């Protein structure tokens, strides 16, 4: 439910959202890439499993926690996209990995 405006800001950076390639403008965050991929939710809550999408996009709400390039629990709205970045949604609580 979001679209780019190519005349103002062309989508030139290719990232992978849940494994699917998406073109996004330079300067966009990983959270914006998820929205442009057509997904409304980024995470499922650890408490009830309800879906959540980004609320603030400015680092306040933490509703955008995602796994980025293999690192879980990152604030997707605070991470600018880079070519080839892998962005995956997060379900439930993270487990500590050895």
């Amino acid at each position, binding site marked *: *439910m*979001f*679209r*780019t*405006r190519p005349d*103002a*800001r062309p989508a030139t950076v290719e990232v992978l959202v849940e494994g699917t390639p998406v073109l*996004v*403008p*330079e*300067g*966009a*965050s990983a959270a*914006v890439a998820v*929205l*442009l991929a057509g997904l*409304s*939710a980024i995470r499922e*809550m650890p*408490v*009830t499993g*309800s*879906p*959540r*999408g*980004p*609320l*603030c*996009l*400015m*680092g*306040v*709400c*933490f*509703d955008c*926690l995602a796994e980025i390039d293999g*690192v879980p*629990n990152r*604030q997707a*709205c*605070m991470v*600018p996209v880079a070519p080839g970045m892998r962005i995956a949604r997060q379900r439930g609580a993270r487990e500590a990995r050895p």
Partner: protein
Amino acid sequence: MTDFDVAIIGAGPAGMAAAVEARSRGLSVLVVDENAAPGGQVFRAAEAAAQDPAVGPAIAPGLPLVAAFRGSGATYRPATTLWHLDADEGALSLAAHGRAEDVTASRVILATGAQERPVPIPGWTLPGVMTAGAAQILLKTAGVVPSGAVVLAGQGPLVWLLAVQLARAGVASLVLETRTTSLAAALARAGGGVWAGRRLLAKGLALMAGARRRGVRVVTGIRGPRAEGEGRVQRVAWEGGSAPCDTLLLHEGVIPSTHVSRAIGLEHEWDATQACWRPVADAFGGSSHPRIAVAGDGAGIGGWEAAVAAGRLAALDAARRLGALAEDAFAARTATLLAVRAAALSPRGFLDALYAPPAAVLAPADDVIACRCEEVTAGAVRRAARLGATGPNQLKAYLRCGMGPCQGRLCAPTVAALIAEARGLAPGEVAPLRPRAPYKPVTVGMLAGGAETLQQGGK
């Protein structure tokens, strides 16, 4: 010997102006900012967005400041998080690109800016519900707009600015204005500030007219907005109406971001007009801690022009305290800036009165989620308060509010207001949440890496 004379947290209007002023007094300056480019919220991604006709006009006034900041010679650390500040030692713990680092500064200026006031309404956790500020960030950082049915619900200058910007970008939104204070009542309450602020007020009225002219539909005086839908927002409803909705953008004004100022234990005061806490500060931003100054919206909402003046005042005060500026020169320089700031602040009383948040936004109904991270309802908070939770710090033990990933950034104002209401106290009588370091999550690996470089004698 410290690494820097002045460390500034935040590269928004106040932080950039402080950096430029401090550099012009010959001080060494470090600027730490979480974002990738300078500008703060109001001038976010200013350089990249300047040519975009949707947001360009609003961003243009910030470009000279961004350019002056870039050329100031300050050490600028973008995409960098301050995760701990030892005020007594002047030691800052930073994290960037997966690495931790410690630096020291003789004086620290917190220019952490504002965040949007939480707008807890029924259904606000549904995907597709965002803040108006988030929509502006989409526009400024990436030129992205919501498609489908777009609804703005709330009040304040940003609602109208965003409606115009979206319209310029080809998105005709529906504005549901929650304002219940009449112009006449706001004028009566504000008293004398109106004439001095007429430029800003004229701008506001022009925005509203511009929005309507561009096809923005407006319903005024709505009550009880709620988001509805299965798995995502599909409809917005209010008392006596409803509309289809794919993206709901909420806004009830902004409040100071006090996460860091709280965590380091600065004294704060309750601002009854703006219904928020702010750090106690003197005319030059000097806080209750001898090393720390606060400047800009993080010290009380005043808008970017007041923030620029405040940043420069805090920098001049730093120069004076560090012996780089004589008392008489300080007095001469600051006199003008104090007047500039007073003029910039003069319309605030009127704006604050006009856009006072509804009681149901400050303390929502029992079935509304107050704490999004731990999914705790307002009713649960009220019950815990009646059982004996005297404030947000005690409530953590009852319900975990403030212990989720946001560390209370979003829920703290709501939780405090609910406790105050349940215990029959004034909002300023409930001791607010005291956040702890790390202010943002850092990995154990990052900390271990930082410790290693320190052991090797590195910085």
